[in-house]
């Protein structure tokens, strides 16, 4: 009896998750009347806007990861080594982006960095790109920090540092050549998650008027019938590839990242 209900729950649940996936793939193939074809994919891939926005988001995602690593790794390391009492504070701050909706944060950006402010980032395209980059790094902060902090917890940070120092290494060298390689698995997990988040992000890019992949998808969805499904399949593939790699890495390196 118990087993029956277990199977029932699993099968109903799995159906709920599989049907949209199957439905999307099927729909994306339906563009040509009466037969299945890859026309919708061809149409999407041939669209110059697709290439432009997708590569824009890929570049932004890579920069976000670089910025995230630059901010998070030295901070997490330093706090563990020298300022352990500050850990709860840092942890609290890194969790804030999960509490404050992204739309509120970007609303604040528009207010704080508008053309009449001290730091008029929204006045120029490159300034807005920089702002969006920092926004993405903020969104990725909770995942990045927790991944790196978990990675650090498996190391004896103090002994490693003392050993490196007694061999004459400076701080940049310690972080770049010793700490970073040792938490690489964790950093990669955080990086893949950040990548997936940035590629699909819509709210910030749309409100800051940047030509990213998320707003492009939304626009196409409002104007076309079959291409959005093809786009969804592509986005699925990218996200799931990233997340799959992340799960694989976290299993390989033995670090666990909670979902939220």
């Amino acid at each position: 009896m118990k087993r029956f209900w277990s199977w029932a729950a699993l099968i109903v649940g799995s159906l709920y998750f599989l049907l949209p996936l199957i439905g999307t793939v099927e729909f994306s193939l339906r563009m040509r009347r009466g037969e299945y074809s890859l026309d919708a994919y061809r149409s999407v891939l041939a669209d110059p806007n697709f290439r432009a926005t997708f590569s824009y988001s890929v570049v932004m995602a890579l920069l976000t990861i670089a910025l995230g690593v630059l901010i998070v790794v030295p901070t997490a390391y330093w706090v563990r080594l020298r300022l352990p009492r500050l850990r709860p504070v840092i942890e609290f701050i890194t969790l804030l982006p999960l509490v404050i909706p992204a739309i509120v944060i970007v609303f604040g950006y528009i207010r704080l960095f508008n053309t009449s402010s001290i730091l008029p980032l929204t006045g120029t395209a490159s300034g807005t790109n920089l702002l969006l980059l920092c926004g993405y790094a903020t969104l990725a902060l909770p995942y990045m920090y927790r991944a790196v902090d978990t990675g650090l917890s498996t190391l004896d940070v103090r002994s490693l540092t003392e050993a490196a120092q007694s061999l004459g290494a400076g701080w940049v060298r310690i972080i770049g050549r010793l700490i970073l390689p040792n938490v690489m698995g964790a950093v990669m997990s955080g990086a893949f998650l950040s990548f997936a988040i940035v590629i699909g992000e819509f709210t910030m890019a749309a409100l800051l008027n940047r030509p990213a992949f998320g707003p492009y998808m939304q626009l196409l969805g409002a104007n076309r019938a079959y291409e959005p499904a093809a786009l969804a399949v592509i986005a699925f593939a990218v996200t799931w590839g990233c997340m799959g790699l992340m799960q694989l890495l976290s299993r390989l390196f033995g670090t666990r990242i909670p979902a939220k």
Partner: protein
Amino acid sequence: MRNIGWNWLGVVPFFAFAALFLVLPTMNIVIGAFQNPQGEFTLANLAGLASPRIVSSFVISIKISLASAVLGCLIGFAMAAAVVMGGVPRWIRGPLMTFSGVASNFAGVPLAFAFIATLGRVGLVTLLLRQWFGINIYAMGFNLLSFWGLTLTYLFFQIPLMILIITPALDGLKREWREAAEVLGASTGQYWRMVALPILFPSLLGTFALLFANSFGAVATAYALTGSSLSIVPIMLFAQIRGDVLQDPHLGYAMAFGMIVVTGLANLAYVIMRTRAERWMR
């Protein structure tokens, strides 16, 4: 050991970044909610939230968040319980957890497309139901661009999130407790009602709060799905930031402040409940 001042320098970049791109922008909105356009202190913006349009947007947002959190908790719990103690083969657990990790992070525009392709007017399931069973769900009043449509779509990331969080809690139920209950003559129902559920209660309530906050702040899925036809809070705020639809920019700050209060309370509930739940998880 170097002196304290030097130590602090190491975290300056982090605090500068957090202040500039997280704390100050949020503070700016919160303060703006209590200011009039001249920069004077006022409660008029918060009072302005009481307008019927805004109240109804908060009501429908909270309803959708509640519905998707309740259903997400129930279905996610059933699926997690099935793999942890339901007697299904062990190999199912790995793929389910992996899938949950992926799907809980899959929200946004593509998710909306997936549901349009599935349950939209010419979506796969809509067509199959009509062809195979003669059921026309749209004639029966179903609409993807509605309360239930949005709730159904949100469940796609809510259920996996529940599975991810509740599975460790279910693992934490010790076999000895069940054996002790059975030795004392408890039925399965009594065990659940008097032992397992009270222990799980903080975890359940905490996850429920997290799921609630999770769907309350979601913008992209709703926007891609409904455009602006369903006036939930994030979409109203989105439209307000894009162009001044409320005829009063400071009303926008008040709405954003309202969102922070709702998600903040929900997350606070999650933290408190998680602390309580951890008592049993040793």
